[in-house]
């Protein structure tokens, strides 16, 4: 590096790289951990509301069990948001996939089809339906260039209709143990569902950070034209992400089905879980514009929502106020995340 030619002192070659790298990395961590103070406040509030709140049984077995299904779905939505897309139909995939599988495996007496397929095959069907829905979404959005919002809005209504129509409004129950395993069983005090969710979060986080396709996802979301100019196969990766996202939503639905030991017609769409899914991702700093966000952030968004829901339950607030409290808290969390986390948290662009 020559002084004559490049007189500015901060030329890259001149400074040892490790020294320069620490600054931005530390900043990145602060941004990712933006929700930690909010979580701390919630823990204090929870402890004040109920003595039960700060017990491992409540936090690990209770909250952990409850947020796992949501969390896995949030990973799927976050991936789709990162490529600059959005998928409203994840909530219906979350209901339809386990519904069809349950219908195929439980006896006719429990509102099944009577086919009574192998439960392990049922799990494959759950994931397979997720993949199929994601593929259709991906092809319509990426190849046919339809608007993602309207495609997945139409899809979510179609799938919810199929979910109810296929079982004529019934709720299949008597789920075989193998099928319900990840939603119901515990490893000691820890729910299997929580382990599965944690593995999904960590795997997705590492993939996004260290795998070349993961990095390509950020590039596509950040600037699709530049990604294409760099030779990244933008269309292929986008479709792949829609497929992966729907598969994760289907897995989330399988966990939820196991947790409640049946599949109701309301699971997913009628429960309106897509709002919680988006809220968790956005509170966690995943940008709706694409290209920004981490799995650590998304996970903290999920935990925050789970804790708030838990506190509302413990406080024995009347049922009919639950929606108002829930919505209010989510909006409040968004504002807080914006204040603490800066631009990325609230998508101000």
């Amino acid at each position, binding site marked *: 590096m020559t002084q004559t030619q*490049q007189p*500015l002192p901060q030329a890259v070659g001149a400074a040892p*790289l490790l020294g*320069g790298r620490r600054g931005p990395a530390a900043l990145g961590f602060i941004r990712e951990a933006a929700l930690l103070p909010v979580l701390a406040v919630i823990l204090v509030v929870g402890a004040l509301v109920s003595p039960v709140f700060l017990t491992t049984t409540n936090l690990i077995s209770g909250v952990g069990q409850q947020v796992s299904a949501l969390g896995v779905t949030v990973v799927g939505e976050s991936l789709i948001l990162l490529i600059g897309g959005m998928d409203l139909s994840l909530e219906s995939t979350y209901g339809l996939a386990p519904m069809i599988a349950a219908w195929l495996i439980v006896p006719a007496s429990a509102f099944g089809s009577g086919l009574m397929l192998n439960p392990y095959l049922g799990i494959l069907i759950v994931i397979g339906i997720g993949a199929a829905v994601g593929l259709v979404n991906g092809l319509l959005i990426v190849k046919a260039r339809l608007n993602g919002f309207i495609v997945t809005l139409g899809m979510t209504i179609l799938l919810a209709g199929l979910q109810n129509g296929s079982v004529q409004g019934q709720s299949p129950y008597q789920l075989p143990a193998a099928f319900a395993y990840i939603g119901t069983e515990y490893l000691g005090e820890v729910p299997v569902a929580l382990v599965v969710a944690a593995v999904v979060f960590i795997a997705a986080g590492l993939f996004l950070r260290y795998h070349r396709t993961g990095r390509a996802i950020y590039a596509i979301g950040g600037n699709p034209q530049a*990604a294409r100019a760099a030779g990244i196969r933008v269309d292929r990766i986008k479709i792949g992400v829609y497929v992966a996202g729907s598969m994760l939503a289907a897995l989330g639905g399988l966990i939820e089905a196991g947790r409640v030991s049946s599949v109701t017609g309301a699971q997913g769409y009628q429960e309106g879980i897509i709002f919680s899914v988006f809220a968790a991702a956005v509170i966690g700093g995943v940008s709706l514009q694409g290209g920004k966000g981490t799995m650590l952030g998304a996970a903290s968004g999920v935990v925050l929502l789970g804790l708030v829901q838990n506190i509302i339950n413990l406080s024995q607030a009347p049922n009919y106020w639950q929606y108002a409290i829930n919505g209010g808290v989510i909006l409040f969390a968004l504002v807080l995340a914006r204040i603490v986390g800066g631009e990325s948290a609230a998508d101000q662009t």
Partner: protein
Amino acid sequence: MTAVLTPAVAARGIHKSYGSTRALRGVDVTLAPGRCLGLVGRNGAGKSTLVSILSGLQRPDEGEVTFDGEAAPPAGAVHAWRAKLATVHQHSMIVPELTVAENVFLGRLPRRRRRVDWRAVRTEAAAVLGEWGSGVDPARACRDLSVEQRQIVELARAVASGTKVLLLDEPTAALEREAVLRLFTRVRQLVDAGVAVLYISHHLEEVFDICDDVAVLRDGELVLTAPTAGLSTDGLVNAMVHGHVGGPTETELADQASRTAVEDLPVHVESADAAAGRPVLELRGLTAASEYGDLDGVSLTVAPGESVGVVGLISSGVVTLGRIAAGIESGDEGELLVGGAGLPGGDRAAALEAGVGYVPEDRRTAGYVGALSVAENMTMSITDRLSAGRLGVLGRRRMHEAAQPWADSLALVASSLAQQVADLSGGNQQKVTVARALARDPRLVVAITPTRGVDVVSKELLLQALRRAVDAGAGLLLATDELDDLGYCDRVLVLVRGRIVAEVPGGGRFDRTAMIAAIEGVASTIGSIGAGRGATSEEPGETP
């Protein structure tokens, strides 16, 4: 010179920092009524920051701005600032879905009886635009306009506001010659009418053409303010680079830049084309309809180690030609062969695999991913190689190791390889884009307007880097509307309305005036550009 008059705008002791970067350090600038001040400086010198402070978009950390001796409105008070001055930005501030007339009066549509007076909007817009002789229809939607026409609308907006202060932030960056001349005439009229103008440009000749005085920014400090009459181009470049007028000349500096850094550029070209005696690029009878300009039966070849310039007006199809060669768009008819093998049209990934490096026409929209780091952008086309045999796992360290030699040899100015590209200055962003294009051992490099909006020294460095790839055996297709870029080309093709009308030797040996005439489509001069012979597909005299 300004002693008698109250300055129209005065900025005193302006400081502005972004984190640890001090963009401006105690800058004093005054704009006098009836004078045009040129503001020059290399990329990253602080020009954009100063403009955003003068136009009220940002608040200085220290210092104050006054208009006619009165304190300026608070930063961000858009309407209050707009009453004081008008700005024409480097990047388009046009709303594409509105009509030309609506854009001219954006935010201040004339009203009558509390309703928008649409008739006045149309007639007044037509009057303003008519003065330009631009032929832009006020009723047209702006999305249908060319880049040049959009720029005209922006200028018309500034003029229509009846402002006394005008900031022109690189207004000619995307304009063609005729339009630049029209612009200058108009600016001169405004100055003569008593408007104070601040003119920011990378083209130093323009500064001498239009400005009465010039101010030079270097590393956030104002190092020179003087009348242009007493200055030379070399003196100005020296002030930009060294902070004082005397010293080595522009050419010496450029030579120095290329020798010191670009020599180490880690370009490797493993091309079998030279041995096989075949061209790296062959286009046969290419016809295309494109928003970037149509092509009408273009054929050309680029040999290994050869650099071919394609020059023409923005709408002439030069950009389309580059985009097709790079695999970004596909033509309607014709063939694209790289290294003798046919390529599917519009498949960028396939083109990359075949060995085509690409510098897009607009770095902001397609050159880099702003939110990602320098290292990540530089290595974006080689992630498969960096992660080969590791199941696609790609550590940060590997990317940094691969990017470091490029940053060094291109003299990249950044706080570290982990810095976001969005935070770099324009010239350094373009270095990142060029590094990415060269990183994958290209047998062919397609570069479209690679030096647009880049300062003199960076410009030379970028062209040298491309030249270095050619020396290493790659072919270069350089599509541009800037004659200065063509100095390194072995031969130059002139495109008019999608057809090759002339082929001339490069190396700066062409007659500039004749070349410009050819680009503008003036047929009679084509024979005299250089030792030129007709291009393969056209008879020399046969032009539209």
